[in-house]
């Protein structure tokens, strides 16, 4: 059996859909026997009816149209200010590609122009030889080889008229001779050759000769 205190706490739920059948039955039984709790139940049912009316007059309520307009405006503003992802992706790739190309050009340029030091594997290994200086050079290459007549004039250079020239011995890939305007067979371009450059007093090469023993060399030693 339900007490008045229990009825006040649980009994008024008897009309709710989620009230358990047992609780509803106990509450109903108590309300039939107790006039005070019956009056309380009646009062609550009146208030429930008023709440139902309050619910009815607000059930169709919704946010005014201006809220939707403001939200649409927010969406549009954000959409217009957003940079397309495709544009960002393309720009990123373009920058990366440009950086790679610039690095490659710089590396290639550096490898082509930086003079090499003896003992490294740079294809432009150079030994500078002055006429008469036999101490640092392979005697096979020096000595009587210094004969201007054996040199080939480089295209665009003037024949040397002074005695201040020097001979520079280099081991280069045959293809590098193209920089001096000399023709090279494509299939021979990667061959390593020993050449002598006749360098004028201005430091510019004016003529070149190829060591005969370099024919068919495959690479620097």
């Amino acid at each position, binding site marked *: 059996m339900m007490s008045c205190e229990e009825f006040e706490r649980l009994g*008024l739920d008897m009309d709710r859909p989620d009230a358990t059948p047992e609780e509803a039955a106990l509450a109903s039984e108590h309300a039939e026997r107790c006039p005070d*709790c019956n009056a309380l139940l009646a009062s609550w049912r009146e208030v429930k009816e*008023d709440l139902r009316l309050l619910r*009815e*007059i607000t059930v169709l*309520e919704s*946010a005014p149209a201006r*809220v939707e307009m403001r939200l649409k405006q927010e969406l549009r503003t954000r959409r217009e200010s957003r940079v397309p992802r495709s544009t960002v992706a393309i720009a990123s790739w373009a920058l990366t590609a440009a950086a790679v190309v610039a690095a490659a050009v710089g590396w290639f340029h550096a490898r082509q122009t930086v003079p090499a030091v003896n003992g490294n594997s740079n294809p432009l290994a150079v030994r500078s030889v002055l006429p008469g200086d036999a101490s640092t050079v392979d005697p096979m290459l020096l000595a009587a080889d210094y004969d201007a007549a054996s040199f080939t004039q480089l295209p665009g250079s003037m024949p040397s008229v002074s005695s201040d020239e020097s001979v520079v011995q280099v081991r280069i890939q045959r293809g590098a001779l193209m920089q001096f305007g000399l023709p090279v067979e494509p299939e021979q371009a990667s061959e390593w050759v020993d050449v002598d450059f006749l360098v004028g007093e201005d430091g510019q090469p004016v003529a070149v000769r190829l060591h005969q023993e370099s024919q068919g060399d495959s690479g620097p030693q």
Partner: protein
Amino acid sequence: MKIVEEKEPALLKRAVRGDEQAFLALYQRHQSSLYRYALRMTGSPWAAEEVVQEVFLLLIREPQKFQPDRGELGAFLFGVTRNRVMKHLERLPREDSLDAVNGNGNHWKEPEDPLTPMLIAEKRERIEQVREAVLGLPAEFREAVVLCELEEMSYEEAAQACGCPVGTIRSRLHRGRALLLAKLELLRDAPRRAGAGAK
């Protein structure tokens, strides 16, 4: 797939990317229930409008706050609405509309009842009294009454919405009812059981 059939996380994803149709579909699905809750809690169409706008602006600006694996979008939006309403009530305990004009500029929908003008007026007065009494309740009891009696949620649903146990909701509803009865008793000066729950 028709937009009405799309699941809400997918719609939200499209909305965030600027798809207006997707956003409006979500808005139309949820705005009225959120607005009604805010209106019933604050008693103010203006406050309810502001709350709904804030909730959906949050959805646009910070969509990552909704995590589909943690629950439905509706529950998330309700939670945000609830927080906004409670903050509003903390700042301004109660705002009353001085008349029965709602946020759209329309008068409250009259209860459909083939009664005489006097009975209609009496009914309108009763409705206004119960509305005043609900808005006069402390926030946590008011919420229990709004959710369980006006929104017609089950105890389970109301507990989930509030993030509290079912027992807590029942307890708050019990207290809210008692206070409502006491307030209305004073307003209407009708004979009620003395001290009925208003302890």
